[in-house]
């Protein structure tokens, strides 16, 4: 059936939760492209037949014409499916930059095609150059904080980290007063550890990052556990 593989490709993307990325289906994508080539060949041969009979392609409505019409619309349909597939994925890839920052974890990278990875890096660079030009961090929390610093309880060993001009040791169960902007990345993108290189490998691999975020009144208002890091 014409257009079947293309819509299956889309169904796969549509069936997963919105905002989540599926593995790029290279095989199905190529199959649809091949189908398009097939339609194109058929279309050409039907046009040739029409020409041989000396009929005007625009005005006749015989069997050949209708056949060509069906192939033409199947082509358009396949094109629309492929475009929508790419477009929807591109949207998710762009949103990743805002959610996870400039470096993606491996498990998400593995789901992307090569061109999507390049697209992500380009998009990320564009945002960064804009932010440095304007000298404003667009990824920070949109709601102004009540105070510039927050109380943070470290739930598991993170190790020495460099925050701005000073270094701090985030050991388990220690309490710190950090600048809000410094603490944010630990909470939103904890699966990626930006300062991982400072730790010795074996310990780092097993480290679980647990950062508990305390409000100024001591009440917990967020708990963000995270997974094993592969060093």
């Amino acid at each position, binding site marked *: 059936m014409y257009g079947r593989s293309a819509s299956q490709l889309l169904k796969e993307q549509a069936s997963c939760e919105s905002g989540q990325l599926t593995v790029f289906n290279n095989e199905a994508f190529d199959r649809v492209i091949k189908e398009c080539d097939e339609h194109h060949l058929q279309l050409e041969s039907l046009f040739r037949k029409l020409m041989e009979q000396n009929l005007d392609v625009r005005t006749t409505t015989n069997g050949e014409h209708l*056949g060509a019409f069906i192939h033409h619309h199947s082509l358009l349909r396949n094109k629309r499916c492929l475009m929508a597939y790419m477009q929807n994925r591109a949207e998710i890839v762009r949103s990743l930059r805002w959610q996870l920052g400039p470096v993606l974890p491996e498990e998400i990278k593995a789901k992307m095609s090569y061109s999507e990875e390049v697209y992500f890096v380009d998009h990320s660079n564009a945002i960064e150059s804009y932010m440095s030009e304007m000298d404003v961090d667009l990824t920070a929390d949109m709601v102004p904080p009540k105070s510039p610093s927050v109380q943070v309880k470290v739930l598991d060993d993170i190790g020495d980290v460099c925050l701005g001009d000073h270094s701090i040791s985030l050991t388990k169960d220690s309490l710190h007063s950090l600048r809000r902007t410094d603490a944010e990345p630990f*909470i*939103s993108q904890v699966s990626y550890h930006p300062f991982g290189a400072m730790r010795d490998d074996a310990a780092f691999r097993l480290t679980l990052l647990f950062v508990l975020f305390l409000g100024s009144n001591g009440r917990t208002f967020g708990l963000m556990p995270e997974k094993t890091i592969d060093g």
Partner: protein
Amino acid sequence: MPGYYDMDDILMEDEPISVVFQVGAHGCGLLDPGSETIDIEKGMKMDLPYWLAHQLHLRQAVSISVPASFSQKTRKEIQADAACVDLKGRCPYFYELGCKIAPLVGDKTIGSFLLYAFTDRYKEMLSKSHGAPAVTRFSSRLTKEESQLFEAARSSMAAFKKWRTGGSRLEKAAILGRKRKRTVPLGPSSP
């Protein structure tokens, strides 16, 4: 008007419609996997996806019959108890397809039938969405559009509750969320 890249619109157009060819078409036998020739004869019956059936209908090449999802049987079931009918199983894009198909088959009763089905089911949907969280049996009967409404009602209720109790502003990125639960048990564990 749905956009060119709208996935739901594209998938809706994939719903099969049964058509009868009024003229023959050459060189496209692949449409029907069981056919032996590569030509389609006049008078042939076939199930075509909506996107193709619609285009062919505009050229008066096919005649379209009312799909089974809008048959008298379904209408009777809807009239009996709309909320109990499994519309998703019949056609996940019931309303969208109904709107598109009504002018093509020239059946004026489809419009009012859709409206009746929607308003009747909507009441049930709204009350269930605020109730118990385990509503899988009910939500599996909803069409795509209904389940979007259902989710919207649930998430806005959850957001309202979170706002009232003062939930956290900083959260882990959603895309990392589900994976973690499978790989690492919750709760602090020593390295």
